[in-house]
Structures are given as C-alpha cells and as structure tokens.
C-alpha cells in the first residue's frame, strides 16, 4: 500500500479534526452531566478527611 504525503494531509485535516471535536463533546458531556455532580463533590471533599488508614470493613 502506498500512502502519499497528500493522502496523509487530507486524512489529518478531515478525520483528525472530527475525532478531536467528537472527543471534546464527550468530555464536556461527562464533566457537566448533572448526575455526576454528586460523585464529583464527594471526590473533591474525600481527600480532606483526616483518616490515615486504609478502609477496613
């Protein structure tokens, strides 16, 4: 198979852009999804707990 310079340029200018845009949308949706808020709030406060032992049942 012969991949020319022009083929690569065309590919990166089209699909390269599309996949980055699609990825960006996915990340924004994940970060702003309303039901994730609780989990993120818990995560950011959890590191401030003063417990210094692993979790035991």
């Amino acid at each position, binding site marked *: 198979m012969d991949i020319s*310079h022009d083929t690569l*340029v065309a590919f*990166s200018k089209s699909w390269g852009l599309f996949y*980055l845009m699609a*990825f*960006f949308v996915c*990340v*924004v949706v*994940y*970060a*702003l999804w309303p039901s994730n808020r609780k*989990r*993120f*709030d*818990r*995560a*950011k*406060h*959890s*590191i*401030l*707990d*003063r*417990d*210094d*032992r*692993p*979790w*035991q049942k």
Partner: protein
Amino acid sequence: MIAKLTSSERQNALVLAVIVALAGAAMAILGRSDVLGVHGLIVMIFAGVVIYLIMASFYEPEPTEDREASYYDDPIKAGIVLAMVWAVFGMFMGVWVAAQLAWPDLAFDGAWSSFGRLRPTHTTGVIFGFGGNALIATSFHVVQRTSRARLAGQVSPWFVLLGFNLFCVLAVSGYLLGVTQSKEYAEAEWYADLWLVIVWVTYFILYIATIARRKEPHIYVANWYFMAFILVVAILHIVNNLALPVSWGHAKSYTIWPGVQDAMVQWWYGHNAVAFFLTAGFLGMLYYYLPVRAQRPIFSYRLSILSFWGITFFYMWAGSHHLHYTALPHWVQTLGMTFSVMLLVPSWASAGNALLTLNGAWHRVRDDATLRFMMAAAVFYGLSTFEGSFMAIRPVNALSHYTDWTVGHVHAGALGWVALITFGSLYTLVPVLWKRERMYSAALIEVHFWLAIAGTLIYVFAMWNSGIIQGLMWRTYTEEGALAYSFVDSLVAMYPYYIARAFGGLLFLIGAVVACYNIWMTVRAVPAAAPRATDIPATTVAVPGE
C-alpha cells in the same frame, strides 16, 4: 525495609536481586573493556548491596500485624530521601555547567568534566533523579490515600524505586564515561533503556492494581494525571529509544529512525517528556497536596476534568514546534504551532483552578511558606505555559530558537513550576509520613522559599535578556546585507548574563540544601505527633460554588 516482608516475599526479592546481579555479570563479560563492561560492574555492585540488605535481615521474624490495615509508607520515605539526594547532585551539576559557560577553565581539562558530558548529568539528575523519585514517592502516597487501599504489592514498590534509581545511575555514569545516544532527555544507551522499560511497566501495573483495589467509588483526578504520566512516558520512551546496538558487547547503538523522522520522533518524545513527565505528574501533586494543605477542596472538579483531557490530547501534537524552519513538512510545523497555542486553554484552566482554590485562604498563603510554594508554582505554571505557547508561534520562534531564551523558558517551568510544587508537596508530606506534628523549622522553609524565588527570577531574567540579545544580534544585517555580528561577538555579550545565571542557580541549590537539612531534622528531632483519630472529617470549611 525487609522486616515488613513475609519470608516468601523475602525470597522473591532475593531472586530478583540475584537475576539483576547475573544480568550485570553478563554485561561485564560481554562488554569487557567497553563502557558496557564497566556498567555491568556497576549493576553487580548495586545488586550486591541490595542482596546484602535482604540477607542481613532474611531470618528476622515475619510481620505479625495485619499489613492491609496500614498504608505502605516505607518505599515513599526512601523515595523522598533519594529525590533530595538527586536534587542536590543535579542542581550542583547545573551550577557547575552554568559556571563553565562563564569560566571555561572550570572543565579542568578533563574529558569527563567537559561541558558536553556534564550537561546531561544535570538534566538527567534533576528531571529523572529529583523529579522522577519525587513523582514515584508522591504517586505512591496519593494513590493509597485517595483509594483508601494499601499498595497492591509488597516487593514491587521497592523494585520500581530501586530499579528506577539504577537506571539513573547507569545514565549519569555513562555520560561521564562518554556514552550517549545524542537524544535530548534520552541520552542513556540501549541496555539502560531496556531496563527502564521493565521497571516502568512494573510501575504501571502496580499503579493500576492499586487503583483496582480502591474503596472509593470515583478515582480522584490526581490519579488520572499520575496514570497519564506513567502510561504516556512508557509509550514515549519505547518509541523514541528503538535502536539497534552495534553488538551485544558494545554500549553504542544506532536509532532505527532515519533523518527528519528521527528529528520528529525525538521532539515528539522531548516535548511530551515536558508534558507528561514534568507537567502531568506534577499536576497530580498539585491537585492533591494543594487542597490538602489549604484544607479547601479544589475550586472546580469539573474544570479539572476538562483540563485533564485538554492537556492529554493537545500536548501529543505540539512537539513539532521544536522543528520550525527545518526539513519537516510545513503543515506538520503549523500543526504543532496550532496545538501549542490551543494548549494555553487547559493549562490556564489548571493554573486558575489552583489559584481560585486558594481564593478566600490568602491569609494562609501569607503565613504558611509551604502553601506559598504551591501558590508560586501555580503562578509560574501559568506564566511558563503562556510563554511556551507564544514561543511556539513560528515568527516568534525565528527569534527565540537556539538562543538562551529557550533555556530561560525551560527553567521558568523547571525551577518555578516543577521544583516549587515538589518542595511544597514534600513539606506537606514529610511530617505526615514520619508522623511528626510539623516540619522542624518553619523559618527554614521561609528561607528556602525566598532563595528559590530569588534564584528563579535571577535565572529567568538573565536568560530572557541574553536570549533576546543573542537572537537580535544573529539577525542584524549591515547595509551591504552581511551579518553585522560574528558568533563570538554575541558570545562576549552573554558573559554578564552567564555569571548572573550561575548565581541564580547557586541560590536555588542552596535552597535545596536547606530543605535537606530541614527534612533530616524533622525526621530526627521533631517529636512524634499524637496518633490521629480516625474517621474524623476535617474541620468543615465553606465550599466555594462551582
């Protein structure tokens, strides 16, 4: 160190050390008088010391306590000590090479002490020795605390830590002996590179396995950064170091990448080493130690997610800005330039997120030099990422490239961001880890802070001045269209700045020595803190809205 291992784990550790010693023997036999032979000897000595340490307490009683009820902190402590040793070594070498530029006689006519051999010992010493050990130590700490689970291995954390340091020793001693791959930040030769692959894959598996044991539903964002750091550095290291050795008995190898592809692969590696070794991992530190020290949750968790994915996906494409005006296709240069400019968005999102976390706690920043270290680090991170995006623009690069401006930019990042966030994190971590109430001396942290800030500013301003003067002198033409200045003219103009730069670096080095003393005295002289009550949340603080 050995007393915490069961007897079967001690056996495993011994077998590993013996295998490494045998590999060293094979290198010594195959390499004979070549540098490879010398390195074989170094590997054997290193493994010999480890074997001695294991054997010395091989028949001690096994641990009786439930190890899963406590975090595994011994490798972290060793990692902090090693990081500080490498910091002093690497920064001393930096001051030495900086002084050589002003006073070339300081090479003392030795081959081993010439500029070309000493410079990579500085870069490897500070980036991998200091930065790498600090990253390994803090990542082991953060992953355990945020996952509320002990590390997933007993021997493997030691293997990762000691194996990584063996790599650093092989790299640095190799440069002094005259071997190099001539690749920026990847100068170590093929056998050391192969060893690092083994160590690094173990590190990755250990990290993932620890995350898999987590008792928290969500993986805290600091771990994302550490995981990106470990995973991407593995990919970069393997691809960039694909090389064929001249023979099994020879240290020299040749890269498989030809011509401009080699240049592209090298700077894809080089720039992502800055991105994932010197940025992602240290952002992991920032997102854990800054909120913990300030006792305030991160300003916006959502923003930290957005900037994480922004940084991971943009940085990958930015490397070609190191190759403006070269044989690299024009569109690849433009691609690198565009992504470098876009990178400013996630970078400033992280820096702003850190500073907004401190908003409302400025009195603590004023009173607590440790927190101020981290605040200043976030500011320098914002400044140097702005500068980096700016310098990646092709016409700006025409002025800045090959000049000291680049060196100044790198050090704004390395001293102002990487080293400051590391020192801030270590001053937070050391008392916690050794269960002390506080650091030995708050005044010495203050002294260190101002030495570090003064050193960084002197260094960076000296290099900005000299870099722009260099760039302008090299592009000044006479009316006849000839170059107005010779290279030596520009070199003479640099002399005062080279002296200033060495002085700035010296201040920074003194600060690191002060930190070593402070950490040592904290461990030796500060009384142990009363055991902390468990399951008591931190004093409730007002949470800023998102």
